[in-house]
């Protein structure tokens, strides 16, 4: 894995009286152990990849407590795991990235929520919304609503997050309903402290097993006719039970203030941002004492009608601070007030924007607009409006003065084995003509950015081949689907390959076999190499495909640009119909470097022969056209001022971060670019043969007038 938590997980052993210090993700793990879970699982994806990494690194601690850990192959299998809590008093938690992961898990979620649970079941959602998000901007709230799963959104500080996890299990059990806990990206990585408690060993777990299965009970199945009964149970029993629990245990917070004629209802996760915005407007102090009363919803679904009514009674207006669209909470508040016959005016989307992240700037504006509209007495409205205006004005002014800055999107790492495949694709297209490229989720989606700018659609993880199914039959040239090995095992194997073979599709699939789920931090996947500290069984993609009936199959080393371009061309041109698969084979360079560097250092220490390779460019041969960069885009291939006093265009250069993958040379060669590239090698701890050959060569070349180390010294 990219990041090791071996050191940090020791904090999971803390007990009563200790203070836990660390990151949000780690605090959630600790809270799970304090809640006495019997099983955990999930599928990686930002911002909760690290949660799974933490669990994997904490395997020893989990084993002591008898907690079963499953690194699932996709979110559907993670959600299905929660099925253990339908019949048994087992607490369990799974995690994935929302919204996309929840989409994949949706089938299992419906079937879980309908019969309900006896053991607390919790889903920790990495809510990838706003800044840094890498997925479609949709809300998980819709799933909570439609499946009747409670949705927790705690205040983003460690004590609140931990309490919400613990209370969440109780809520789940009290109402026989699974719960979801959403954590925004910054909350996952927020640091802080909370008073730790002892870890709890579950009643039943790996170390004290359940004696036998429960008796057959039809009512525990999501199967008609009981599904009709379950639908009624959801609304008539579980919902009231949940509301009662939330009310009785005060899961939501109420902050009182002196400006009582108005109020604010805020999603728990946005509380700190709202309090800080109020503080900047002079309406709160730094310790969270607010002049305007606030209702903090640590549980955003269900809303407790009595709480809403009690808060709004006597208020002219309330502002609902709810990120994302549709405005579910705002609508519910409106309905509750109408039912209660209250005339409190509800503001929300209006003073606040309909979509996008509620940053400090957005909130300053929204609050100022709300106050300007409602004009509560005892508040200096004009001063507040002026302050909010100044903030925006400044941003507009400085942006205009500096002009548009070039963006810096993420890209393939130095030496990434996926980059050469796109170089080869680009070269193949020059010869064969442009092709439809069906892109996928994973590092390879960086090819949609410059310099490749490739990919006509992205339909979901492992879906590239399936999303080209109707393109091929309607187009002259075969479409090319690109998929990672992570995507292949997550979904692509069935949705893409099996479906294509079943329907005798005639397309091309390029599988990036780098050995890990790389984009999320190099987690193991079923085809990761077995052995070492790997948990993987080492399944073979190639054999899987052959067994399924793929006839045209080539495995090409991904760094061999010319061979890859030739294979792609052959796949495009061949008269043979059917699915053609090219496995681009090359280990994730981040993972490889981590391993190889340590190995080489060891070898050097032991005095063994090590060859160091790096690439370079002769700056007096390069003419500054940058074709090489347009075909490679390697971070260590960059530009520098020309050393030629008569030229102004910068020339290409290879910087120190080069890992010697050789792509730049391959590309220069395959694309016939220019003779500037060279590969330089040095042998550390050389054998006597290395020295002898070198010595002879040096003597002769020196005699011919060339560079000789000794003569130069």
């Amino acid at each position, binding site marked *: 894995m990219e990041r090791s938590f071996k050191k940090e997980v020791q904090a999971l052993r803390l007990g009563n009286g200790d203070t836990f210090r660390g990151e949000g993700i780690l605090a959630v793990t600790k809270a799970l152990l304090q809640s006495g879970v019997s099983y955990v699982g999930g599928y990686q994806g930002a911002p909760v990849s690290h949660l799974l990494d933490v669990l994997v690194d904490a395997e020893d601690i989990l084993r002591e407590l008898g907690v079963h850990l499953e690194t699932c192959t996709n979110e559907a299998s993670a959600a299905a795991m929660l099925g253990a809590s339908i019949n048994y008093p087992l607490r369990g938690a799974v995690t994935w990235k929302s919204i996309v992961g929840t989409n994949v898990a949706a089938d299992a979620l419906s079937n879980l929520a309908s019969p309900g649970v006896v053991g607390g079941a919790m889903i920790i959602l990495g809510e990838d919304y706003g800044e840094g998000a890498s997925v479609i901007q949709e809300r998980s709230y819709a799933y909570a609503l439609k499946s009747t799963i409670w949705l927790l959104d705690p205040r983003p500080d460690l004590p609140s997050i931990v309490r919400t996890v613990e209370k969440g299990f109780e809520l789940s059990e009290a109402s026989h309903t699974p719960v979801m806990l959403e954590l925004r990206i910054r909350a996952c990585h927020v*640091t802080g402290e909370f008073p730790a408690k002892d870890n709890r060993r579950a009643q039943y777990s790996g170390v004290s097993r359940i004696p036998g299965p429960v008796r057959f009970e039809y009512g525990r199945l999501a199967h008609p006719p009981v599904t009709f009964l379950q639908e009624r149970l959801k609304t008539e029993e579980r919902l009231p039970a949940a509301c009662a629990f939330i009310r009785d245990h005060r899961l939501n917070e109420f902050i009182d203030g002196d400006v009582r004629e108005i109020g604010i209802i805020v999603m728990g996760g946005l509380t700190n941002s709202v309090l800080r915005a109020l503080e900047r407007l002079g309406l709160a102090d730094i310790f969270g004492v607010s002049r305007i009363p606030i209702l903090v919803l640590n549980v955003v679904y269900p809303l407790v009608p009595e709480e809403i009514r009690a808060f709004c009674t006597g208020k002219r207006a309330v502002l609902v601070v709810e990120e994302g669209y549709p405005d579910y909470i705002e609508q519910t508040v409106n309905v509750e007030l109408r039912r209660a016959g209250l005339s409190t005016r509800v503001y929300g989307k209006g003073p606040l924007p309909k979509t996008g992240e509620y940053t400090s700037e957005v909130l300053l504006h929204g609050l100022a607009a709300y106050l300007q509209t409602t004009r509560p007495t005892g508040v200096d409205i004009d001063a507040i409006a002026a302050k909010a205006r100044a903030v925006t004005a400044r941003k507009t002014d400085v942006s205009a003065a500096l002009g548009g800055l*070039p963006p810096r999107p993420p890209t393939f790492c130095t030496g990434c084995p996926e980059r050469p495949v796109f170089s080869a694709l680009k070269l193949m297209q020059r010869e064969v003509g442009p092709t439809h490229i069906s892109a996928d989720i994973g590092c390879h989606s960086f090819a949609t950015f410059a310099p490749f700018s490739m990919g006509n659609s992205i339909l979901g993880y492992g879906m590239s081949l399936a999303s080209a199914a109707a393109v091929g039959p309607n187009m002259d040239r075969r479409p090319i689907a690109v998929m990672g090995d992570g995507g292949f095992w997550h979904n692509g194997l069935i949705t893409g390959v099996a479906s294509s073979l079943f329907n005798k599709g005639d397309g091309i699939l390029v599988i990036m076999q780098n050995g890990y789920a790389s984009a999320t931090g190099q987690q193991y996947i079923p085809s990761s190499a077995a052995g070492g500290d790997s948990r993987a069984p080492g399944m073979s993609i190639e054999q899987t495909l052959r067994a399924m009936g793929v006839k045209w199959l080539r495995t090409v080393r991904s760094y061999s640009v010319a061979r890859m371009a030739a294979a792609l061309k052959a796949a495009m041109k061949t008269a043979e119909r059917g699915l053609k698969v090219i496995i681009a084979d090359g280990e994730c360079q981040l993972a490889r470097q981590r391993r190889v560097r340590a190995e080489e250092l060891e070898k050097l220490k032991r005095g063994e022969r090590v060859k160091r390779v790096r690439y370079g460019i002769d700056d007096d041969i390069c003419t500054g056209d940058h074709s090489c960069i347009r075909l490679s885009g390697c971070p260590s291939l960059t530009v520098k001022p020309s050393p030629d006093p008569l030229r102004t*265009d910068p020339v290409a250069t290879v910087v120190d971060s080069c890992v010697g993958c050789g792509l730049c040379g391959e590309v220069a060669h395959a694309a016939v670019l220019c003779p500037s590239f060279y590969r330089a090698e040095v042998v550390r701890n050389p054998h006597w043969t290395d020295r002898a050959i070198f010595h002879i060569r040096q003597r002769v070349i020196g005699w011919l007038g060339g560079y000789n180390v000794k003569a130069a010294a």
Partner: protein
Amino acid sequence: MDNLRPINLLIAALGGEGGGVLTEWIVAAASEMGFPVQSTSIPGVAQRTGATTYYIEIFPQKTDLLGDKRPVMALAPGIGDVDIVIASELLEAGRVITNGFVTPDRTVMIASTSRLYTMDEKIAMGDGRFDQEKLIEAVRRNAKEAFLVDMDTLTRRSGSMPSAVMLGLIAGCGRLPITAERFESVIRADGKATDANLRGFRAGLEAVQARREWTGEPTPKKFAPKTSELVEHEVTYTLPLVAQEIAIEGVRRLIAYQGVGYAQLYLSRLRAINDVDQTVGGQGKLVCDVARQLAVRMSFEDVVRVAEVKISRERLRRIAQDELRANGEPFSVHDFLKPGIEELTQLLPPIIARPILWLAERWEWFGRIHFGMKINVTSISGYLRFLVLAKLKWLRPYGIRYQQEQEQIESWLDLVKKAALISIDFAHEVIECARLIKGYGDTHARGLANYRLIETRVIRPALAGGLPPAKAADAVASARTAALKDPEGESLAKCLAEIDARVPLPAAAE
């Protein structure tokens, strides 16, 4: 105590620079001193060389003195609410400024002057780099206090990591209630690469405490060797003063490239331009511009020049010592060459080369037939191959490439002279068009084709009076810029179409 607010610190870093470690150090130091502290980040793409930020809030009152109260910490920076901004790269410093986080009433900004160019800047066919001065000016203008230093060089010189240098810079800026000693003890407690990190920390600390701002050294230029040839001296009394420096460099370069006679040809061409310059009152500007481009064009890149560079002693010394740091250890250098028919026939006289090229064209060899080789220039046979090529220099003037180049140069100079009679600006733009022709193989062919397109579609019509003189310079300039926009030539085609649309219309438009 009511007036106390958190001290807010925004770190703008790039993947792999250790922003996460830096954040951990600061949080650990503040926490050890008993201050409430919180950090957040947006990692994920951090390892993938994208831009990333870390945000820290430190409350400057110890927790013990707060009783039950706890400050509300924000998870993201607010405009006008940031005390310290540190950016490890200049463009990222600019990005923080455009986002509004640097305000003159409050923010201390520590910015690196080093650049890590973005993809858009790198893939430009000419010079796509963002204006560095504009960024530096923005830092100075927007911050309450600005400190600019080349963190990249500071890091490399101290043999450390950017994170350690940044910690030193933050410690030294005097805005945090944490002493340098405390930070050092945190680095020690961390226990990883302690010595290197302490070196980096101190380098940063000292730089900021001594207010030693510097922006790195400019890249050294490689000038052609001095000669004692008369032709070099001749420049000083035949050309105007403003053009002499460039022209002398040109003369030296061409002596090294081919010989004294070739340098004399250069000078005589310049003198002809000088005559035109004097006629039109160019005050040496034309000579200056031509001197630069003509020297580059006349020293065109052919196999002889490439071979000479490849076996140059200075090159191999640089690679062995500076890049490989080979201290007596065996090393080798392998060059990637892939000449096609054109490269192989360059040195042949036209009478032999033409039939070969004619055949090659008929049999569609161009762009298809190449002779790929990886030559180890540090092996005897590899060295000899390059040596033989380099020694073929005497053949060059008889070769077809040489003759083609001279024809093209003459034709270009002729256009320049004619353009000068219309306007100096127009002539200047025609001169600059020479920059389009560069590189090898396809790149060279594309550049030449673009140049010819502009020549036939814009320059020649303008010379024939098809464009008003004031418009001619603009038209050439925009066509040249368009040619450098994309390698597929879409921008150029669009630009030429726009120029065409304007040409016949001047009367009708009124």
